[in-house]
């Protein structure tokens, strides 16, 4: 049991516990906190794989901006406890086992796949960030510019949605 495996299982357990907590919690603010825990655990996993820039971006953008947006909206709307409605008995009794069965099927397919993928090795020093940026601005420069337009459209959309009706 090498150190990397121990860290992997610890972070994976944290991510799974966080996601189960996301589903089970009744208050949306607690679900938001669980999702933040999941994101930090995933950032730890990215670091374990050697993708350091992606790990930092995950925490800064996803955990530090997008989730803050969620938390703001929950606070603004004063979202309280979720109502307990039982509209469909079939969904409750057959739904969860079915979803878990689908997940288990995918997981089993991956586990038994004979395609031997090489294991992720943490790459050396700054090659990750440097190659990432060189690739981003040479091969992927069109998608990069398109995402900047996408963000501009999203900002304009948010401003229009936030205006009061005069």
């Amino acid at each position, binding site marked *: 049991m090498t150190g990397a495996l121990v860290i992997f299982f610890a972070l994976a357990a944290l991510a799974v516990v966080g996601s189960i907590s996301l589903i089970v919690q009744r*208050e949306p*603010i*607690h679900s938001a*906190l669980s999702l*933040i825990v999941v994101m930090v655990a995933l*950032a730890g996993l990215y670091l374990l794989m050697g993708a*350091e*820039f992606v790990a*930092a971006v995950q*925490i*800064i953008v996803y*955990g*530090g*901006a997008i989730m*803050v947006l969620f*938390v*703001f909206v929950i*606070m*603004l709307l004063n979202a309280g406890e979720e109502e307990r409605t039982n509209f469909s008995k079939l969904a409750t009794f057959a739904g969860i086992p079915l979803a878990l069965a689908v997940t288990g099927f995918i997981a089993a397919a991956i586990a038994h796949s004979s395609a031997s993928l090489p294991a992720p090795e943490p790459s050396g*020093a*700054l090659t990750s*960030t440097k190659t990432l940026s060189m690739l981003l601005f040479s091969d992927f420069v069109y998608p990069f510019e398109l995402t900047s337009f996408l963000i501009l459209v999203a900002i304009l959309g948010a401003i229009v949605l936030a205006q009061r009706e005069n």
Partner: protein
Amino acid sequence: MSLLTQYAFLIVPIVKVAVLVLIVLTVDAYLTWIERKVVAHIQSRWGPHRVGPHGLLQPLADGVKFIFKEDPLPANVDKVAYFLAPFLALMLALTSLAVIPFGPDIAVLGHRLTFSIADVNISLLVLFSITALAVYGVALAGWASNNKYSLLGGLRSSAQMISYELALTLSVVGVLLVAGSFSLREIIEHQANGHLGLLGWNIFGFTKDGVGFTQIIGFFCFYIAAIAETNRVPFDLPEAESELVAGFHTEYASMKFAMFFIAEYTSMITISCLATILFFGGWLSPFPASWTFTHYVPSLLLIPLGLWVIFDGMRYETIFGRIVLPGVGTVLAAIGAGLIVFPVVNDAIQGVFWFLAKVFTFLFIYVWMRGTLPRFRYDQLMSFGWKFLLPVSIANVVLTSAVVLWRMH
């Protein structure tokens, strides 16, 4: 002995963490003393001078007060968020100190000793991640308190922190372009210009490989954004005494309030450390490397300081002061003399001395601004952050990248 060397990779960081936490908590406590004394003298009054000589035991009295005060739990608070918020704020503030290099690597007993706890090559990104997560401490504190004023104060404060985080991150991009690395240690080493000393720092920009550019606009944006991030004057509207009761930490008392308090001062220290590392050369001496006589500057400062404290103590009014102050002065003078006598120790602590001197200068500027400047109104604050600071940071990035590109050819 072999067990010790086998687990040295675990024991050395733990010892470093313990030393660092002790030092930082003491510096926090005495930072409150410095703040109260300096603000008081700016306002032509004395500040604390009863508890111990010159009020030096005031932080101790404050600590005792925090321990013995009642820690109430308001009704109908969200218990998870209420207990999580101060803990999160304190944990993030202290964790950010792990990646800061306090001095160059020195050789101790044949082994290399690094002056940082974790020397990672993305240390700047780690610091930004921690700054990004620090918003939650404030937002959750405001939400959990079941109090309209806390909620408003928390929302305003977190909106302010998010807005200035953008300008903070962008103003540092100029430094990254010039240095070519995220590692704080490499950023400092890039500014080491042996001949010109002071001028090699990023604020002046005459680095050794010629690819530097003065980052004075970047420093200006960074320092202002950092003051807004740490919720200090002139950006402390969300927690000011005359507004919104006390903002997001209204419903917190005693130990939990102390955690917010310590978190705020620790983040002040982190920002000052970051400002010195990124723009003022970190642990580099301002004198050129060939002027080796400047290695005696620490002693030259410590010995007169120790003698002055001794003379001041001998004429102090209380008996306690007349014993303690000369004692402290003797210790300081002895350290100064010891540095002259043992040049090995002197060379080892040169970097740390200059680093601490610069950090304390920035902390003094923080406190100076507290005593002098009025605070911004909330809409002035937000429009300043979005309409002035962000465009100026972006312009700095464009300008720096143009100059770096031109100089590289």
